[in-house]
């Protein structure tokens, strides 16, 4: 009996292939989780060794040497990091934005070498106390390992994208010990679509990551919340408002990072030395405000305790933490944006809580709610992941009341920030590099495909000096309706159509110059043009093909029908990837 082709589902072979992919996902999950656990431990170990962690600083007996170390360690760390980045082709560390770009353009194939160097430089940055996050490097490390796995198993691009997402999910599941957040993050930030075909391997990876985290890492929760009271009904209104203002804080934070990056580019200092300068400045500032050093887990904790900071102090540390992170990331340290955003957001929430308490005189029983709302309001817009932020709160605290408060906050935070600034810092950075993800994956794909992929010389070219008769005869012989005028030096002089030429012959006889028949307003493409631009041009032009001109020189043409085919082909691939079952 043959299977009914109208029924969904296939034979046993696709099922086996799908199971293989799930198995692959869990294997990648295991490797990525071990790498993530090793990375987290490595950072802690370096922080103890290099006198960055408060515990090691307190245990160190010599105060004057401690001052020296506070400045020297980030500076030397910056020096090493700057040197390492010279070995990456782009001269900058790779971040989750690169993984997102690889998946959104279906390119896959994350470079292992650049990924490895970025991970090492992030380890050194974090170990030396730079004010950067650890989750970004973990995500990119997981993605790189996933992509590497797909290449080793000789899988296709579509599978490559799934294994990238698997690595990402496992890294998050391990680092936060939050498997659900890992799965959602991979979908929300990296894949940006939901397909059952991708879900199963990603879930398998996240579970393996979670198991390894509980076994191998055995770390305390990132934040721990004792039994809380239930906030008053009116406070939920405040939580929503905190979300709105938090979006602005997030915007300020993102633009500070980008702004320092632009300023740094203008500095008369070699790029490889910039992180060292940032390290020296950070270390000096940390002598007065040690809270800005490193990931700031202690600061995060204190920000959830009412009375640990005064109101003015909260504002000061908030501003300095934004400045320190912008300095470190903008000047080229390698690291993520999430951990500092956690600290900044929590400080912001604590500031709101302190303000409310001083205005209403109410006891600060629901202080932790304000801190968590602020945290979510800043982190969700920065990484473009409201659901992930909520799930992290939920999985880390297991507290439903706290999660609903965070939900209230994120309701306004994410959309406002997306309207004002962009979907996430990654998207803003990619936009700066010429990849616009704001209209989804279909457009990103077209924008990422150069027209040169479809370039052909199989067309009729004519000398501008050719006669009308000659031109018409050539076109008729070649069975084309358009010809391109190219002189002996290869320069392009325009496009003529058979219809125009024929009309000219009817009107003025054969002695007319064919250059008079050149179609005005026919746009051309350059070798850097993308399929997306070509599609846009086609809306205004009807013709056979578009010429590709490189600084005046004719390179060939791209046929309209090829552009349409490419578009259909990519749409079809996306549809299969996003709506296929297996």
């Amino acid at each position: 009996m043959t299977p009914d082709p109208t029924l969904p589902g296939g034979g046993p072979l696709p099922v086996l292939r799908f199971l293989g992919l799930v198995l692959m996902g869990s294997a990648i999950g295991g490797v990525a989780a071990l790498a993530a656990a090793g990375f987290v431990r490595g950072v802690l170990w370096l922080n103890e060794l290099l006198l960055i962690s408060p515990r090691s600083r307190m245990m160190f007996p010599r105060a004057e040497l401690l001052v020296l170390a506070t400045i020297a360690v980030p500076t030397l760390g910056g020096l090493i990091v700057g040197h390492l980045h010279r070995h990456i082709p782009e001269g900058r560390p790779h971040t989750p934005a690169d993984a997102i770009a690889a998946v959104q353009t279906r390119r896959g194939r994350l470079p292992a070498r650049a990924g490895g160097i970025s991970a090492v430089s992030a380890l050194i940055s974090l170990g030396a106390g730079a004010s950067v996050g650890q989750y970004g490097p973990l995500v990119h490390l997981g993605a790189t390992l996933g992509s590497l796995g797909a290449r080793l198993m000789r899988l296709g691009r579509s599978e490559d994208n799934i294994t990238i997402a698997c690595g990402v999910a496992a890294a998050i599941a391990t680092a936060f010990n939050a498997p659900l957040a890992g799965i959602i993050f991979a979908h929300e930030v990296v894949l940006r679509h939901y397909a059952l075909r991708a879900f199963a391997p990603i879930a398998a990876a996240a579970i393996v990551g979670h198991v390894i985290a509980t076994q191998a890492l055995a770390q305390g929760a990132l934040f721990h919340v004792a039994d809380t009271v239930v906030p008053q009904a009116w406070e939920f209104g405040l939580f929503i408002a905190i979300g709105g203002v938090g979006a602005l804080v997030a915007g300020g934070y993102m633009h500070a990072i980008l702004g320092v990056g632009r300023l740094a580019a203008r500095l008369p200092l070699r790029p490889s030395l910039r992180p060292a300068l940032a390290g020296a400045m950070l270390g000096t500032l940390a002598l007065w405000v040690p809270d800005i050093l490193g990931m700031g887990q202690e600061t995060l904790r204190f920000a959830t305790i009412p009375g640990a900071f005064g109101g003015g102090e909260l504002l000061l540390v908030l501003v300095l933490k934004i400045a320190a992170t912008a300095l470190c990331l903008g000047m080229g340290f390698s690291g993520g944006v999430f951990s500092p955003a956690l600290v900044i957001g929590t400080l912001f929430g604590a500031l709101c809580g302190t303000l409310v308490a001083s205005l209403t005189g109410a006891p600060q029983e629901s202080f932790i709610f304000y801190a968590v709302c602020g945290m979510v309001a800043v982190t969700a817009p920065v990484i473009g992941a409201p659901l992930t932020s909520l799930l992290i709160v939920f999985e880390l605290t297991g507290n439903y009341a706290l999660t609903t408060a965070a939900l209230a906050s994120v309701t306004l935070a994410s959309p406002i920030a997306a309207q004002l600034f962009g979907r996430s810092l990654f998207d803003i950075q990619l936009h700066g590099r010429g990849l616009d993800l704001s209209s989804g994956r279909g457009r990103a794909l077209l924008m990422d495909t150069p027209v040169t992929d479809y370039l052909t010389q199989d067309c009729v070219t004519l000398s501008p000096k050719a006669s009308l008769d000659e031109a018409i005869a050539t076109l008729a012989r070649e069975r084309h309706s358009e010809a391109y005028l190219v002189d002996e030096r290869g320069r392009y002089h325009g496009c003529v159509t058979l219809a125009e030429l024929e009309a000219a012959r009817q009107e003025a006889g054969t002695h007319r110059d064919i250059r008079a028949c050149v179609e005005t307003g026919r746009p051309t493409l350059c070798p850097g043009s993308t399929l997306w631009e070509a599609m846009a041009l086609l809306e205004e032009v009807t013709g056979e093909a578009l010429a590709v001109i490189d600084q005046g020189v004719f390179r060939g043409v791209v046929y309209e029908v090829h552009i349409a085919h490419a578009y259909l082909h990519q749409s079809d691939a996306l549809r299969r990837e996003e709506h296929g079952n297996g």
Partner: protein
Amino acid sequence: MASRLVAGRLIAALLLGLAAWGSAALAEPLRVLSWGGAYERAQREALFAPFTEQTGQEVEVHQYDGGLDALRRAGEAPWDVIDMTRSQALAACRKGLLQPLPRDLPAPAPDGTPAERDFLPGAIGDCALTHSLFATVVAYRTDAFPGERPTRIADLFDQQRFPGPRALQRTPAVNLEWALLSYGVPREELYRLLSTPRGLRLALDRLSELEETHWWEAGDESPRLLAEGEVVMASGYNGRFFDAAVNQGADIEILWDAQVQEHETWAIPRHARHPEAARAFIRFATSTERLAELARHIPYGPARRSASVRVSTHPASGVDMRLHIPTHPLNAERAIEKDETWYARTLTRMDDYFTAWMEEREAPARDAAEEESNPVATP
């Protein structure tokens, strides 16, 4: 040259012979250094006497007088086995005064669970093997708070719900931990947070909020203050509180939340005369059965899980000892493990902070007292 080599071999052979004679002959008693008092009595009944009975090896108990300086002197050590706290053992081990212990020294549990999984984390050290844990805890008078009883360490600082004077040890240790914990920080982060100026300030602020604190120094003061009703809550050693409650009938109860545990270990000095017999003794004394028996005599928590759940009744009073030992799962759930490395490096600085805070706290109180006494002095 050759003659020297021969002489060396002769001496080596002689030494080997001596060693063999020493371990086999049991002619000399095994010299154990311990802490004396009720503790030593319990060890005699639960460990030393049964060991002699089983192996024929006599045990001679020495008591601490003036620390472990004798270990530093050249030549043979005056003891074969030493009962010491883990922090002492860590320091002595670093200085090379102790013998490394083989990893397979502790016996597996009766059900076959390997020792590494049966002992509590951190119990099996390079030179010392934890046998029991004692705890610094808070105890309270049961008659002081009718209706509600303290359940969390934060209640120590809550004089609104639990009014009355407190007694605390005049040291930074334990007090700082409890004060910071009362803000609801997780135990895992305690020492990291106490390492920041902000954490220290928060902890001292909490201690400052307490009205009427008696600061005790000797271990027997706090049970006495409680028993006499001078204070309603006090910190102290769990063994002392047990003694006051069970043996002397004081009306006090232990709050196990945030108990701070410390390890008591067995160790062998580098130049012990009978290391073989010492190891045999340690293996015997740390068996599940012996540890459970020891905890019947004195409320010290066995370092192995299999022993903690086997602990039964106090021989003299018939009290269920499981409720009184720090490592029983019911009591140990929210225990703090003291970060001994942290204290080893920061103790002087912590002492300085604490003393400065004490002086600052006592100065205004003294001024106020002087002002008050003046009008009384005038007729």
